[in-house]
C-alpha cells in the first residue's frame, strides 16, 4: 500500500471521482491552474480545464448559491473554501437553501454538494482557525465529516462526493502533511462508522479531528504509567457512531472527549449528553471534556500552544479521570 500525505490522498480520491463522473466539478478561490492554496487540486486543471476547475472571485455566498442550484439540477459540485472560516459568509445560503431543499421539495430534489475547507488552529490567527463542528452538526440535512488519516481522507471524500445530500468535509490544517498508507483505487469509507484507532481497557478517549494524533501520543505516555487508553476517531460527526463509543465505555467505564473546538454546545457536549442518556450506568466516573480555550485563536505560537489540547494535557486529564 503506497504511503502518501493526507492532501495527496484526498486529491487522489477527488481525481478518481472526477475521472469516473463528468458531472463532478470544483469551485473555489485559487483552485484552478494554481492547484489550490492547500494543493487540493494540483494537476487536475491540466486534466479537466476551466469548465471543471472553476476559479471564483471572493464571493462565497454567490458561488455557494450557484453550486447549490447546479446540484439541484444534477451536477455534483465540490466547493473548496480553502479556509473554512470563509464559509461563514455563505452560511445563510448553506443553512437556508442547501440543507433544506430536499425537505422543502418533499424529496423531489437532492443537493449532492461537497463543501470542504481547512479547519483548526495551526498558527493561523483568529480569522483562519475556526472548527465550527457544532454549527454544522446543529443543522439538519448536513453530513459532517472529519477525516484524520490519509486513507480516511481519500475514502471519506469519495463517499462524500457520491452522497446525494450536502456534506461538510473538514480537513484540519495540521493533518495535511500527515503520511500514512492509502489503498489504491476504489476505496470508500462509509459515513457513521467510527474507527477504534487504538485498543485499551482503562479509559475511552474520543478525539475529534487532529486531537486524535495528540491522543495517540498521550496513550503512549500513559502506557508507561500502566494506564491503557482506547482511542476512538468518530470520523463523521453526523452521522455519529455512538454505538462504537458506547461499546468502548462498556469496557472501560470512563470517557474523555477531546475536541479542539470550543466547549459550550460543542461536539464533545453532544457526545457527552448521548452517553449520559444511554450509558449512565456504565460510567464509573463523570464524563470529561477537554476543549480548546473559549477564546478566538491567538496568532502567537506560545499562546496558541497554551489554548489547544495537546498530548500532555490529554494524558493529565486521563490521569485525573482515573483517580476520580
Amino acid at each position, binding site marked *: 500500500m503506497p504511503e502518501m500525505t493526507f492532501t495527496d490522498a484526498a486529491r487522489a480520491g477527488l481525481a478518481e471521482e472526477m475521472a469516473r463522473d463528468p458531472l463532478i466539478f470544483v469551485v473555489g478561490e485559487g483552485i484552478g491552474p494554481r492547484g489550490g492554496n492547500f494543493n487540493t487540486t494540483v494537476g487536475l486543471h491540466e486534466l479537466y480545464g476551466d469548465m471543471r476547475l472553476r476559479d471564483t472571485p471572493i464571493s462565497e455566498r454567490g458561488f455557494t448559491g450557484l453550486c447549490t442550484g447546479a446540484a439541484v439540477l444534477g451536477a455534483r459540485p465540490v466547493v473548496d473554501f480553502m479556509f473554512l472560516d470563509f464559509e461563514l459568509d455563505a452560511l445563510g445560503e448553506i443553512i437556508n437553501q442547501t440543507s433544506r431543499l430536499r425537505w422543502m421539495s418533499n424529496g423531489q430534489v437532492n443537493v449532492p454538494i461537497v463543501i470542504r475547507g481547512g479547519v483548526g488552529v495551526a498558527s493561523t490567527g483568529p480569522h483562519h482557525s475556526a472548527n465550527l463542528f457544532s454549527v454544522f452538526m446543529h443543522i439538519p440535512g448536513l453530513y459532517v465529516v472529519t477525516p484524520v488519516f490519509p486513507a480516511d481522507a481519500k475514502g471519506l471524500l469519495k463517499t462524500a462526493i457520491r452522497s446525494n445530500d450536502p456534506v461538510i468535509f473538514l480537513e484540519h490544517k495540521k493533518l495535511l502533511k500527515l503520511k500514512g498508507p492509502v489503498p489504491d483505487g476504489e476505496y470508500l469509507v462509509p459515513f457513521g462508522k467510527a474507527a477504534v484507532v487504538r485498543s485499551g481497557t482503562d479509559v475511552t478517549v474520543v478525539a475529534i479531528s487532529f486531537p486524535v494524533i495528540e491522543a495517540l501520543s498521550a496513550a503512549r505516555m500513559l502506557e508507561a504509567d500502566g494506564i491503557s487508553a482506547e482511542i476512538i476517531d468518530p470520523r463523521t460527526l453526523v452521522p455519529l457512531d455512538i454505538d462504537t463509543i458506547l461499546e468502548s465505555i462498556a469496557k472501560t*467505564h470512563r470517557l474523555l472527549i477531546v475536541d479542539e473546538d470550543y466547549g459550550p454546545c460543542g461536539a464533545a457536549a453532544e457526545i457527552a449528553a448521548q452517553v449520559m442518556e444511554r450509558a*449512565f*450506568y*456504565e*460510567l*464509573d*466516573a463523570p464524563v470529561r471534556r477537554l476543549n480548546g480555550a473559549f477564546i478566538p485563536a491567538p496568532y502567537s505560537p506560545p499562546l496558541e500552544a497554551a489554548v489547544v489540547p495537546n498530548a500532555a494535557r490529554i494524558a493529565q486529564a486521563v490521569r485525573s479521570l482515573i*483517580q*476520580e
Partner: protein
Amino acid sequence: MAYEVTLPRLGWDMEEGSLAVWIKKDGEFVKSGELLFTVEGDKAVQEIEALDTGYLRILPDGPQPGVKVPVGTLLGFLVPENERDSFVFPGGVSASTSMATADRVTNPVVDLRAAITSEGEGVLPVAEDAKPRRVYISPYAKRLAQGLGVDWQSLKGSGRAGRIMAADVEKAATAPLVAPKLAGIASSLTTSIPPQAIPESVTRQPMSQTRKKIAEHMATSAHTVAPVTLTAEIDATELVGLRKQLKADAALGGLPLPSYNDMLAKIVAQALLEHPHMNAQIVGDEILYSNTAHIAVAVDTERGLLVPVLRDVQAKSLRQVAREAAALIEKTRQGTIAYADLQGATFTITNLGMFEIEAFTPIINLPQCAILGVGQIIAKQVVTDAELEMVEIRQRMVLSLTFDHRLVDGAQAARFLQRIKRLAERPYVWLVGS
C-alpha cells in the same frame, strides 16, 4: 429581613420529625411567643412558639404535614411589616404564585439549600448534622454492587472525596465475609426475614412515627443487651394497707391518690441509690453511674407505649410523686407531652397488673440498665409460719426485674430485687426517707 421558620430539634437525639399542623395560617400576623405550629417528634407532639414577629409565609413547596423531614428543614418565613409586599420566596417563587403550588411536594433538602444560597447573609446557619451525609458512588459501581449483592452504603470509597468506584465494589465482593456488627442487626432485622406472600385478607396501614420509634428502639435493645429476668413474689399486703389508709385520709381531699406505681417508684428510687450499679448505663467503653433516680413509667396510649419520666424521685415525697405522675400521665394520654419529659430516665417501671398479668419479661429501655415489671396484686393463701402450720390470706404480687448482664451480674441484681421486696413489704422503712 424575613426570619426563617425551621423544624426544631426537640431532643438531643432527634434527627427528623414532621410538621403536625400549622396553628397560624399563611399570611397571618404572628407575634413572637405565639404558638406557630406543632411538631411530631419521635414520640411527642409539641407546640412550637414563634421566635420572631412578622407575617407568616408558609413555604409553598415545603414539607407537608405528616411527612418526615430532617431537623432544620425550612418550613416558612416570618416577614416583617415593611417587607410584606416585596417578599419573594427564595428561588424566585413569588408570593402570588405560592398558593397555586401549595400542594406540590418536593424534596425538602433541596429547598433548604436553595434558601441558603439565595438568601445570603443573615440566614441562620443550619446545623451540619441536619443533612444526612450522602454516599457517593459511580453509576456503574452502583449497578455492579446491585448485581454482586454488595451493600455499597457501608463501603468506603477510594475515589475523590471518598466516592465509591467499581474497583471498591469488586474488592468488597471478593472480600471474606465478616461478622456483621451488632448495631447493624437491628436495622437489618426486617430485611433478613425472607419475604412471604401477603394474603389478600390484610389491612395495610403505614407505621406511625411512634410505632416506628418503638420498633427501632425495642429491636436495638433486644439485640444489644444481655437480658436476664429475675422474678420474686412479694407480699404486698402492707402496700395495699397503706394505699387504703391514704385513700381514707380526709386531709388528702382532692389530691391525687398515690398509685402502686408511685409507691414502687419511691421504693425503686431508694433501692437504686443503695445499689448504684443498677442505676447505670454503658457509654462507649465506660459505665456512667447516675446519682439521682429518674424513673420512667410506661403508659399505654392510643399512639402506643410512651414512658414519661419522673425526675429525682428520691428527693420527692410520695405525694409529690403522685401529683407529678398524674399530670405527666394525663399529658401523655392527651398527646401533649413535651419531648423533654420522655427523655433521660435511669430506670423504668412497667405495670401490667390492671390486665391481670402476673409476671412477664419486659424489654430494657436502652440505655438504662434494668426495668421492673409489676404484676397483678392477688389475694393468696400463704403459709406464714411453717412450724405453727399457720396459713394466712395475703396480698401477693410478682415483680419481674430484667437487667442487662453486660452491666451487672446475677447476684447484684438479685440483691437489688431483694431490697425492693423488703422495702415493699415494709413501707414505713422507705417512707422515713434516706
